[in-house]
């Protein structure tokens, strides 16, 4: 069990008596800071990043939820765990907290040992997340905890609410139960997607780092791959209700790349195109032979990137996260770059801020 000694807990509670009581409970084991509202809490966090925040919801000047939103939008505090203090049975507040990225909740009134256990448990989990999982870039170990934590907390939080409902003697609200269950499924699906992305990227890196260099030169795309890719693109657009925006124009040809890699490549580029553009703006997927290579391009009319952002593309960098909240590890372009590099291809990005982005990848044709 990681040592919690010296960890800093920030208490955010407008009721001074309760705030002092919680300070007293925690001060034997932790360094305790306190604030009377969300605004004061954010000012404290600018000077000292706490290891955990324990926050009430309804407060003047800035509520607990508003503070939480601001924390999750800032790089310095996005991964600080937050436990919300809620009224017992206040499912609406608990649900909203989970959706905004809270890690846990403690219902009032609480026992002293319950509060201590919740804080210690959350700090332990945070330490486990911070332990390096693989020998990867430093940014991975910083962004992964946040990305995985949000859907994990969704599963645990809404699962916990379902448990509470089962224990409650009052009749179960089936609509509410259905909504909670949907949230669990949504969070689980998102987590699975993230795990798959991460696993794939880790495998690519392992292939590269192991000195295998380029993948086997006898690789070849499967017959009918263009249909599979078209279906994949259409399915993605349909999920996001962007079918009318999507145009797919891929000419069949034998490429020296396995269909799995092509699928990942197009999938990542399309995901970015949809994420970074508004509904109603066109997204175009093109594929055609260009000399002795096959050129795949995905273009959008979305947010675009500055030249510096293009230069800085690396794994786990997400642009302007503070201002544009997206989900996903920021691996997309890095994965595409890795796939292209492994197959001896080239990738180019043309982008104008506010105008859109075209990503072009040139891959070798299959050898006869």
């Amino acid at each position, binding site marked *: 069990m990681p040592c919690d000694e010296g960890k800093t807990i920030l208490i955010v509670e407008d*009721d001074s008596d309760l705030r002092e009581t919680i300070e007293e409970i925690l001060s034997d084991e932790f360094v305790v800071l306190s604030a009377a509202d969300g605004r004061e809490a954010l000012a404290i966090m600018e000077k000292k990043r706490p290891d955990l925040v324990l926050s009430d919801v309804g407060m003047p*000047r800035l*509520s607990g939820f508003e503070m939480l939103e601001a924390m999750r939008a800032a790089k310095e505090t996005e991964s600080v765990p937050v436990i919300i203090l809620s*009224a017992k049975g206040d499912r609406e507040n608990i649900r909203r907290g989970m959706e905004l990225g809270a890690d846990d909740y403690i219902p009032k009134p609480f*026992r002293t040992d319950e509060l201590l256990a919740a804080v210690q448990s959350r700090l332990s989990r945070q330490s486990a997340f911070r332990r390096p999982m693989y020998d990867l870039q430093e940014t991975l170990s910083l962004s992964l905890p946040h990305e995985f934590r949000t859907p994990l907390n969704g599963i645990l939080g809404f699962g916990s609410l379902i448990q509470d409902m089962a224990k409650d003697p009052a009749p179960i609200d089936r609509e509410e139960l259905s909504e909670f269950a949907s949230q669990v499924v949504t969070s689980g699906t998102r987590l699975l997607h993230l795990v798959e992305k991460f696993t794939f990227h880790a495998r690519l890196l392992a292939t590269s780092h192991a000195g295998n260099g380029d993948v086997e030169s006898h690789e070849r795309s499967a017959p009918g791959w263009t249909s599979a890719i078209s279906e994949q693109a259409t399915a993605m657009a349909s999920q996001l209700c962007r079918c009318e925006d999507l145009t797919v124009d891929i000419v069949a040809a034998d490429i020296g790349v396995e269909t799995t890699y092509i699928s990942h490549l197009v999938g990542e580029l399309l995901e970015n195109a949809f994420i970074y553009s508004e509904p109603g703006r066109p997204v175009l997927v093109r594929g055609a032979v260009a000399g002795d290579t096959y050129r795949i391009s995905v273009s959008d009319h979305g947010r675009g990137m500055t030249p510096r952002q293009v230069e800085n593309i690396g794994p786990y960098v997400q642009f302007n996260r503070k201002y544009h909240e997206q989900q996903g590890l920021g691996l997309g372009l890095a994965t595409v770059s890795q796939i292209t590099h492994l197959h001896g291809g080239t990738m180019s990005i043309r982008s104008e801020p506010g105008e859109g982005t075209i990503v072009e990848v040139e891959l070798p044709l299959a050898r006869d």
Partner: protein
Amino acid sequence: MTTETQLHVPDLQKLAGLGSGLLSLLAHELRTPLATATSSAELIALRNDQWPPEKRAATLERVRASLGRMETIIENVSFIERIASGRMPREDQAVRLSSLVREALQVCAKGGCPDDVVVDVPRPEPMVSVDPRLFRHALVHMLSYLLPESAGACSISVSYEERPSVVIDVDVESPEYVRRGCDPDNQMRNLGLRYASVIAALHGARVSITGVGDTTLRGSIELMDTECSQTHRLR
């Protein structure tokens, strides 16, 4: 001079509406002082032997204060319930609204609200017939709802032009604060504002919280009932 007012059925219905959901509001309001009392008592039990007398005394005081707050909350909710069910008669007197405003500000100043609020009053100021104790409570609760959000100036104006009214304007930091203050759900969940609303309704008055521009939150109590707006000359 006191007058009892018989409530009309439509008024009772409106009051009853304002009294709905009181039980869940009571449960919600009690949780924080209950958490303080139980946790503080637990701490005393656990650490009594280690603590110096001052610390023990301070913690006991927190328990006492929390229990006092719980008592006040229960009384307030019970009060609202009595008004909402038509079992609370008014004891009207001829008063000037500005004096009730100043008394309410003094009460709020003890709780840490600013004491430099500008009060604009017409001269000469007529009298109105209200239950001063209840109406002052309503003003205290409205001020308690509005003033903590204030980032800047607060001004109060008492007007008798169309109907007797008290208008409280507070400057807030951002449009988000205005939105939050005007949110009906937030208002319904605020015990103090509910209290103010039922007292106002008992007087045939209307409480409203609105936004003025992007950064001003306005609360007003307007006496709609013509009976209440009768003025009395001092003898």
